[in-house]
């Protein structure tokens, strides 16, 4: 579905992505793991069109996304739930959802989708007139996900949705991720919480210092000793 190949993105002279290639399979959950500063957010922002790559390509189905504006990329069916959520704090929950549908013009269908979001995220229905900035962190994350879904994406990108949230809320977010995927949404997820990711994702990539250093299934990931030590916190055995 989404094919990234040989992607290089730089901030000034410093290359944050040094030739990244990966594949996000249709209707699956693909997870990108990696330490802070590896370049995960840079990759997400490049796919979404906020950052321009030096070279490489990003294809959705058969269409090249590199060079398109963020608005065009949303219209093609890619929506990003950004790191730190970035809800519109001075707008109501409902207005945030409507902003998520900005590229669409099918008014009746938009209202149907708002209703769907309220059903999936009951908290949002209760607070639909409340300013988004006054929601709790978990609720803001739900809103950010719902806002992204309002564009009816073919691929949903999520950048560390569990960041800074309490364990119970994290569990809720992950159950929503599974649910969305069961309903047919393709998901490309960035996480540092490898334990949670192992429970939902079908395919893993590991990124370190701007490069993909591992690719595999959950089984392969759990077996890899280096990854176990670094990301799953397994105690180093003596000898």
């Amino acid at each position: 579905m989404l094919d990234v190949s040989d992607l290089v993105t730089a901030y000034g002279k410093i290359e944050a992505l040094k030739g990244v290639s990966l594949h996000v399979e249709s209707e699956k959950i693909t997870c990108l793991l990696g330490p802070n500063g590896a370049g995960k957010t840079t990759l997400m922002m490049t796919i979404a069109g906020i950052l321009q790559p030096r070279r490489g390509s990003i294809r959705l189905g058969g269409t090249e996304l590199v060079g398109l504006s963020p608005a065009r990329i949303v219209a093609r069916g890619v929506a990003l739930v950004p790191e730190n959520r970035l809800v519109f704090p001075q707008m109501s929950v409902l207005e945030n959802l409507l902003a998520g549908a900005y590229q669409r013009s099918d008014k009746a269908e938009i209202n149907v989708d708002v209703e769907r979001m309220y059903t999936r995220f009951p908290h949002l229905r209760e607070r639909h007139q409340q300013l988004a900035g006054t929601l709790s962190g978990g609720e803001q994350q739900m809103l950010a996900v719902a806002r992204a879904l309002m564009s009816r994406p073919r691929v949903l990108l999520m950048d560390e949705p569990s960041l800074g949230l309490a364990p119970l809320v994290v569990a809720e977010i992950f159950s929503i991720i599974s649910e969305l995927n069961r309903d047919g949404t393709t998901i490309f997820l960035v996480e540092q919480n490898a334990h949670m990711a192992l429970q939902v994702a079908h395919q893993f990539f590991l990124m370190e210092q701007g490069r993909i250093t591992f690719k595999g299934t959950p089984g392969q990931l759990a077996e890899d000793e280096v990854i176990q030590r670094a990301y799953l916190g397994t105690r180093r055995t003596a000898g």
Partner: protein
Amino acid sequence: MVDFFQNTIDGVMIGSSYGLLALGFTVIFGVMRRLNLSYGPSIMIGGYLGTVLYLNHGAGPLVVAGAVVLGAAIAGVYVERLCFAPMKAGAGIASMVSSFAIWMQLEQAAILVLPRHTYPFPPLATGATLEFGPFFVRIDHLIMLVCALGLAAAVQVTLYRTRFGLALRAIIGHPVAAHLVGINVRRAMLLAFAAASAIGGVAGFLVLAVDQQVTPMFGMWATLKGLIAMMIGGLGSVPGAVVGGLLLGVIETHSQWYFGPQFRDLIAYVVLFAFLVARPGGLFGRAPSPDITTPQKA
């Protein structure tokens, strides 16, 4: 007592022009969180366009008004393309400094085209007045007040009831997130900039019609009055812009009455200073945030 009320009425009338100027400023500042010092000079360019049509082609008030508004909007777009569109997020100072450079450029351009210091500008109601008991109101002043209230309402409705307004408020909230939901941020900013300059053009036309003359210094005057009114009323607040303008006008007329014309501006600056110290966000606004692109805390 009659004097006090008459002065207050006059202050409100004069102040409505400040309010209009502040309204345009507020739209730019609200959306971009950046100061456009060339705001007044853009309006002055519109004024010169109006005066040229008036002098050379005998244009009537309506055509002149249209020319001022259009000229201000075009000059505004020119400023946006040069000083604001190319600047990266967080480069607010660069935008401000370059808008100062364009200010000088626009002023020089006006002097080159029309080298005399002042040029006549067509009046709107030739100073005719309405009487309300013991009080007098100039008709052109009344038009100014109606325009200020009407345009402020229009801006508010646009912001809160239209798709374009939703886009602008999204940009105000988080420019990156606005991109991510598919808003064409650059185009929306350019449109907002043009609309704000056009509002300034309305203010410019009305003030110039009262003054019946235009000078290159009008740009500086418009930037100053608009800026002070916006600061008093509240950074980024639409009602604040109008209230700030009216308040500034009332303060000025009373200062002039009680202390003489030489104190008029002095006292206005003292009040501005007091506001900056006591309420940096102005009457209606929130205190300015460091930068619009600062990400929210997790």
